[in-house]
């Protein structure tokens, strides 16, 4: 089992979710995060005082899948999340040691 984590632009999250569902991915977890990479932040000025805001709002998707599905998931996310402009985000993969479905107690791949 692998955990695929993607940081994407917030306005793309619906499109990515739809694409993943169409690709047969049953579930995912989404959180609202902030971050920056090469995309710079922005400044806001209030009554003459300027604030430089480095953090940019992003959405983090977390999806646990069978090893065999990892390439399909990565390709789907990259295709649906890309705009070609800076700040599109990143995808990475880590290993998952154990997974349990809380309702039924199923473990391992059966829990995906």
């Amino acid at each position, binding site marked *: 089992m692998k955990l695929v984590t993607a940081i994407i632009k917030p306005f793309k999250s619906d499109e990515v979710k739809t694409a993943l569902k169409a690709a047969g991915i049953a579930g995912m977890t989404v959180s609202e995060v902030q971050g920056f990479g090469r995309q710079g932040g922005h400044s*806001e*000025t*209030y*009554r*003459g*005082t*300027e*604030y430089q805001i480095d953090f940019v709002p992003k959405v983090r998707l977390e999806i646990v899948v069978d090893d065999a599905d990892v390439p399909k998931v990565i390709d789907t996310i990259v295709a649906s999340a890309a705009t070609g402009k800076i700040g599109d985000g990143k995808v990475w993969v880590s290993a998952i040691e154990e997974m349990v479905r809380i309702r039924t107690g199923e473990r391992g791949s059966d829990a995906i």
Partner: protein
Amino acid sequence: MDAGNVAWVLASAALVLFMTPGLALFYGGMDRSRNVLNMLMMNFWCLLAVPLVWVTLGFSLAYAGAGEWIGNGDWFFLKDMNISGEDGGTLLLACVFLGMFAVITPALISGAVADRMKFAAWAIFVPIWVLLVYCPVSFWIYGGYWGSLVETGTGTVTGFLGARGSLDFAGGTVIHINAGIAALAAVLVLKKRKGWPKQGHPPHSMPLVMIGTGILWMGWFGFNAGSAFAANGQAIQAFLNTFLAAAAAGIAWAVVERIKDGHFTNLGVASGIVAGLVAITPGAGFVSGMSPIFIGLAAGLICVFAVQLKFKAGYDDALDVVGVHFVGGLVGSLLIGFFADPEFFGGTFKEGLFYGGDASLLLEQALAAVVTIVFSFIVTFAILKVLDLMMGIRVPEDDEERGLDLAQHAETAYHSGDQQMERV
């Protein structure tokens, strides 16, 4: 009493009351999210404490008798104020309407002391300040009017500033210059927030600020037009003046910021609107025609720069009470010396310089301002210094860091997630 007048003044009183929660939201949205409830509480406290102080002692001290300096006890505890008889409720109406002004004046100061004042100290400060600062200044401008009106049918001001011809239709001097300079005194006793000026924070909720601004503008129609105490031509003109000055000032402030800082912002519009409303307050029933537009433009253009003074002078006026209320009130009050138009109103007040008058009105306005500034600053400073020695008025540094909502009120403004919690 004329039914139309009563109806309008009562409606105005409700509008003015609404301004205090409006102010709370205006300030609260500008403040940080971990202190927003403390800011709201400082304002709501005024709604709780001041009415009690007002009907027991304050109204009488601010208006009763025929003295020059302070009211007497004729109307302590609403004595001799009833709804029957010839006056038929006039004094009670004045008491309730004017009480709303006594409520919001100390509330203005809350914006300056944001993020670091002990609520207990604020709670004690408010009623004391109303009695020792608000009531005397109010008496100097308006004292003697109501007693003589009820007794003789004609109102005559005996308070020493009003008797000299100083004009203040709805409280530019009594409320805005007064509270504005008191705010300066307060931040000098309280001192700067941790990290200021190098570190600060953007407004945590601009939508709240805009809601507050809208409420303030609407409420201000009661503040200014209600001060005519009648549903008459002066009320109509005051209403119109309030409408125009706010719009002009809002544009002026936002345009200056667009040029200076690069964007046309909501905060600029909101700040300008409030500055314009403050500036038209003293002259609302004394100026006519296009004058309110000029007054609004002046307020917007001056106040947008005045709010930078704190950085040059080194005082931490958190939400710019000094830059907007003190400066705006001063500008508006002095401009009466130019724009006052007694002929339009059929009034007996002096003409402004642009209407055939000489500089005497301008000098009276300046005198009233100076007297108010000196008195309010000294007494406010003294009250807070004494409170600071007795109980400390500043929160501990830990509380300033973790937020006053939690530290002072054990409340959190924004709970994320939909947690089910155990009741202790």
